[in-house]
């Protein structure tokens, strides 16, 4: 079904505007607002699923019927619809979870509004076919996320929000500078026309500098290792559903997706940029995993593990870029498939882990693993879902994480890069140990005296966690069942393997 693309931005934007107004009308209106927010995220998820069945591969919407390059366009292709789906799933679960969880905070309407703004920004980034609009949507999502990180207004939260905001704003300025350079060198802001112009004139010094600025800017947003300093502070400080959104989809849409779009579809792949991504990915994987070992704060451990897992995604995409530039198309598409599948998997299981950490924190009032123990009997559902997510992230066979890591290993071996395959397996083992530690200290062992009376919070929180846990268990089917693979993953992979066809497809419409 062909869906008019602006609705993906319009629904959350309208919701963001009306929810706080509605909530001012009294107590009943307040719970109605929460219901509406849930409806909005669910309808976005349904629309994202429907958009998978569109009639053509690439759907272009020209805003106000102004044809490109004069007007602004929105583009929905395989990669965008994959990301829309991930955003839909994670935001639905996070919103369901916050219905109950956010009762502990005041100013819930403001929270709902910021949440919706963040979703609008992310959907906009994914759909935008215009560089400057990409920047505007990026800023909408980022500013909403800075405010959400500092939402609790405690000392640590304010400090983390300020740190995140400084680095995030520097990243945005880098991106804007890069966009200015692209405009100066190509004379257009439309992605398709810019891509066409860049590939006729070649990569002159100005454009190479722009590419470097994009790598630094989007790398900061994606928290790749030299640029990762803000993530372990920012993600744990936010309320749990927001941590799930930030780690689950925000760093991937604003960072990985935007960088991938730039490298594959606009600048075109080359061996240099491919290796740059491979190195960034490998360093993030290893450093993130090692730093996660020493953490005793539940959410901080999860945040470091996010750095490591985003490394996998970037490694897969970088490996794909390198192999494409060298002409090994078959192995390249396998590496890209692994990277993208890992992106979706990580979105699901990391948001689930953050939600379980929120459930644990709400029941016990602490995030320190050393003060927990024996929670398995008190929080049975949290324990089960957390175990499923841990097994998934560690790559234990039937669960989703195993399949994406397997594909990455096969692609690395097929390309003859055995040492990369070895590092992937090694980091996977580190991840397993890390999550065994979480299981051991949080859920097994002796129940401390002061936690004898705790109760599990059920209701909507439980629904959200079970939903994600079911997805975690069965996501492997996305690669195993040919029909699902052909509708969800293959179109996204094709967009990247034929990166420069993007311009032809969009202009040809």
């Amino acid at each position, binding site marked *: 079904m062909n869906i008019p693309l602006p609705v993906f931005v319009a629904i959350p934007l309208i919701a963001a505007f009306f929810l706080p107004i509605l909530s001012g009308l009294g107590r009943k209106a307040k719970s109605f607002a929460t219901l509406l927010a849930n409806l909005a995220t669910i309808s976005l998820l349904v629309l994202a699923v429907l958009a998978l069945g569109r009639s053509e591969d690439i759907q272009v919407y020209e805003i106000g019927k102004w044809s490109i390059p004069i007007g602004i366009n929105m583009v929905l292709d395989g990669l965008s619809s994959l990301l829309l789906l991930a955003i839909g799933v994670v935001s639905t679960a996070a919103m369901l979870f916050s219905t109950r969880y956010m009762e502990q905070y005041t100013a819930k309407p403001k929270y709902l509004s910021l949440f919706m703004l963040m979703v609008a920004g992310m959907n906009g980034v994914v759909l935008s076919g215009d560089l400057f609009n990409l920047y505007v949507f990026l800023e909408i999502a980022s*500013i909403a996320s800075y*405010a959400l990180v*500092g939402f609790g207004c405690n000392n*640590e939260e304010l400090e983390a929000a300020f740190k995140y905001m400084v680095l995030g704003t*520097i990243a945005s*300025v880098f991106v804007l500078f890069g966009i200015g350079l692209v405009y100066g060198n190509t004379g257009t802001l439309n992605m398709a026309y810019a891509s066409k112009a860049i590939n006729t004139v070649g990569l002159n010094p100005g454009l190479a500098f722009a590419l470097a600025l994009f790598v630094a800017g989007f790398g900061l947003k994606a928290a790749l290792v030299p640029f990762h300093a803000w993530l372990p502070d920012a993600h744990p400080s936010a309320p749990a559903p927001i941590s799930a959104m930030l780690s689950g989809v925000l760093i991937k849409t604003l960072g990985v997706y935007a960088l991938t779009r730039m490298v594959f579809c606009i600048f075109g792949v080359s061996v240099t940029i491919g290796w740059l991504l491979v190195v960034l990915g490998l360093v993030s994987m290893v450093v993130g995993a090692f730093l996660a070992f020493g953490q005793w704060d539940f959410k901080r451990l999860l945040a470091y593990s996010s750095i490591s897992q985003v490394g996998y995604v970037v490694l897969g995409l970088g490996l794909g870029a390198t192999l494409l530039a060298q002409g090994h198309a078959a192995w390249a598409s396998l590496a890209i498939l692994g990277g993208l599948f890992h992106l979706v998997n990580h979105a699901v299981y990391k948001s689930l882990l953050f939600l379980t950490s929120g459930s644990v924190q709400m029941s016990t009032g602490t995030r320190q693993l050393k003060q927990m123990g024996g929670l398995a009997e008190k929080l049975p559902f949290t324990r089960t879902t957390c175990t499923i997510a841990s097994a998934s992230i560690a790559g234990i066979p039937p669960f989703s994480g195993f399949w994406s890591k397997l594909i990455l290993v096969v692609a690395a071996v097929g390309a003859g890069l055995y040492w990369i395959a070895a590092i992937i397996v090694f980091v996977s083992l580190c991840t397993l140990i890390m999550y065994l530690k979480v299981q051991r200290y949080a859920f097994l062992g002796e129940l401390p005296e002061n936690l004898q009376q705790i109760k599990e919070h059920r209701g909507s929180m439980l629904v959200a966690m079970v939903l994600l846990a079911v997805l975690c268990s069965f996501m492997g089917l996305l690669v195993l069942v040919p029909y699902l693979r052909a509708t969800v993953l293959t179109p996204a992979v094709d967009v990247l393997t034929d990166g420069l066809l993007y311009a032809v497809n969009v202009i040809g419409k």
Partner: protein
Amino acid sequence: MAYAWCFLLFMTGLYCAVVKKNMVKIVLGIIIMEYAVNIFLIMLGYRIGGVAPIVGKGELAGIDKVTSAFVNNCVDPLPQALVLTSIVISLGSLALMIALCIRTYERYGTFDITEIRRLRG
């Protein structure tokens, strides 16, 4: 030459944001960076001796004037539109940043980021 000055301004802002210890100075550094990028965008569309890209009511009849001589003389209006948008965005993020500074000052009683260190590791 003007581009080099603009780049220098950008680097000054970046240096200020990364090195300074005072939260307000960090915010100022970020503002300087944003201004440098805005000036850069304006310069992209600037043309020495250019005219404003506005066609008057009577002039529309002479199509020739609009297409060749006019287009060769007018400045590029697109970057100016971009800068307007980017100024609005930086206003929003500036307001949030200053609000965070104020709240942090209320809590810690200092703007020095070396003393505001609850988070580490």
